[in-house]
């Protein structure tokens, strides 16, 4: 489980160095470093308001840190042109961020239309395939985002994030607000995509089940610092605040669930 990383190269596909983010006088990130190897699933965890989502936005190049740099495949993220970035990074936003004026299929086809020369007749089968890959039936394709349930929104947004087969998938709370069965389905889906497409996944979550069941490493954000280790390693950490996050009855339940 810990050696899920598919690559034998040590070169990280995404690396963050010395990230500092300040809001007013509050230092949310204090010189954070994170290296993600190709094929890994890395979880980013932390308490509410600890700056997980800001970190994800920083990694996606949507937020410019006060200091530090993010590199994707060794290149600074600011230097990537839009089409390159779209082909390298897919983001699943917390609320899905599906365009409400477009149907699900049109949402998935939008990146294809913008960034590829595929004719419309060829875009539709590709969109149908992405939706099937994300676990949505074809009849969901003509629906509009307002007609979808929470789980379907996440799946449709995931299908859109996969539209250009990005190398890196950034997921912001993919299972939040979902019932346990749907959440488990999303976890399985992430693992399946990682297995079969070799996509590198960075997932922000405070769903302990997700952290324990799919992540090869977890980066825990506490007081602006990142502690990176395997889930087991973090549970045996010498620091009480880290142990506290990953133990307790909920964590035990999540661990037990994982073993089955």
């Amino acid at each position, binding site marked *: 489980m810990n050696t899920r990383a598919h690559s034998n190269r040590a070169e990280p596909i995404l690396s963050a160095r010395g990230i500092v983010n300040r809001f007013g006088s509050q230092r949310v990130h204090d010189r954070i470093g994170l290296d993600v190897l190709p094929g890994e699933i890395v979880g980013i965890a932390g308490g509410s308001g600890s700056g997980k989502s800001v970190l994800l936005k920083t990694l996606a190049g949507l937020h410019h840190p006060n200091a530090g740099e993010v590199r994707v495949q060794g290149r600074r993220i600011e230097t990537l042109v839009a*089409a*390159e970035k779209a082909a390298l990074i897919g983001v699943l936003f917390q609320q899905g961020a599906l365009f409400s004026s477009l149907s699900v299929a049109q949402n998935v086809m939008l990146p294809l239309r913008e960034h590829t020369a595929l004719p419309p007749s060829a875009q539709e089968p590709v969109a149908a395939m992405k939706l099937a890959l994300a676990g949505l039936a074809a*009849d969901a394709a003509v629906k509009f985002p307002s007609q979808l349930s929470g789980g379907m929104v996440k799946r449709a947004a995931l299908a859109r994030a996969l539209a250009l087969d990005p190398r890196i998938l950034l997921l912001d709370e993919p299972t939040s607000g979902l019932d346990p069965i749907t959440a488990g389905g999303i976890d399985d889906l992430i693992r399946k995509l990682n297995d079969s497409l070799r996509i590198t996944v960075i997932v922000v979550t405070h769903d302990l089940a997700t952290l324990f069941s799919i992540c090869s490493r977890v980066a825990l954000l506490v007081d602006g610092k990142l502690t990176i280790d395997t889930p087991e390693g973090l549970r045996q950490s010498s620091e009480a605040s880290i142990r506290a996050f990953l133990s307790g009855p909920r964590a035990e339940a999540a661990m037990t669930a994982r073993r089955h």
Partner: protein
Amino acid sequence: MPRAPKTFPASAIAIEAHGARIAVKGSLGVRTLPELGEALASRRDQAMPRTIELGALSELDTSGALFLSSLRARGVSLTGLRPEHRDLVELIEGLELEPLPKPRSLPRWRELVVETGRGFDAAWRDAYDILAFVGRAVNAVGRALTHPHALRPASISRHIDEAGVRALPIIALMAIMIAVVIGYQSVAQLRPYGGEDFTINLVAVSVLREMGVLITAIMVAGRSGSAFTAEIGVMRAREEVDALEVMGIEPMEVLVVPRLLALLIALPLLTFFADVMGLFGGALISKALLDVSAAQYFDRVRQAADVSDLAVGLIKAPVFAFFIGVIGCMHGLRVRGSAESVGTETTRAVVKAIFLVIVLDALFSVLFEKLGL
């Protein structure tokens, strides 16, 4: 897996044809797919290739795998696939793929009939809703006035400030401008008859009776009616209105009544202010076009218009205020769930409020004509 490091997925594809077999090399992905599609289409006259050699394929993504699996379904054999690429093709083949359903489309004429029917149905429901809401609003305002402890003076004064005081500059500007417009048009039309002096009568009477109150009402509908809808609508979308109800606090009493009362107070005052500014604008235009001094101008105004003209304008103000407020609040409470419905309801509220103001104004004109005012 030796994936070429640092290659960007748009890297190239090479297609070599040897009769019934072709070899595809390089990267087969969503960006290079059109090229392969074209290459196959251009040889369509020679029929599909029998085999595709894929041993030299360096990259394959899901779109490429989908294309390969569709070729395989048409009897083309794929040779030399690398294990990881074969896994991907098999994964795609394992999906239950159905073509996307086409959105149901009606013939044009039926669409027109359906839309017309929907439109009338919506208009009918709207009229019913407005009537029902007017009833509830009158009831709530009446109860608030008879039980003064239920009044919320802080909220009322905040809304008077927002809807009234802050609107003063723009109302002043618009009233002066409208007087200037009327003045210019009148002078141009009356001069050939030597009646340009009557410009003053026209400006004074039309500002006092119609333009002052109309401009003010339209401005307030745009500024405050929309604000009412948006404020209440956002509260509705965030379930704040439901929270009030659960706490036993009547949303009509805390959200609607203070806004209605504030508009009922602010709009007549604003109208009077617009009348004054309109007459002032008339003085400016008379000085500029007719060379009539301010003293002479106000003398003429006193002859041309009397208190009844002012009253005819002012009496309409509370009626307009009531309907602008009712429509703004009603559409705010109609917001359901999503944030986008706040936008559509706001648009509807403004359009409907301005429409109603003008319809009511026309009705008032007929009424005053019959009454001989």
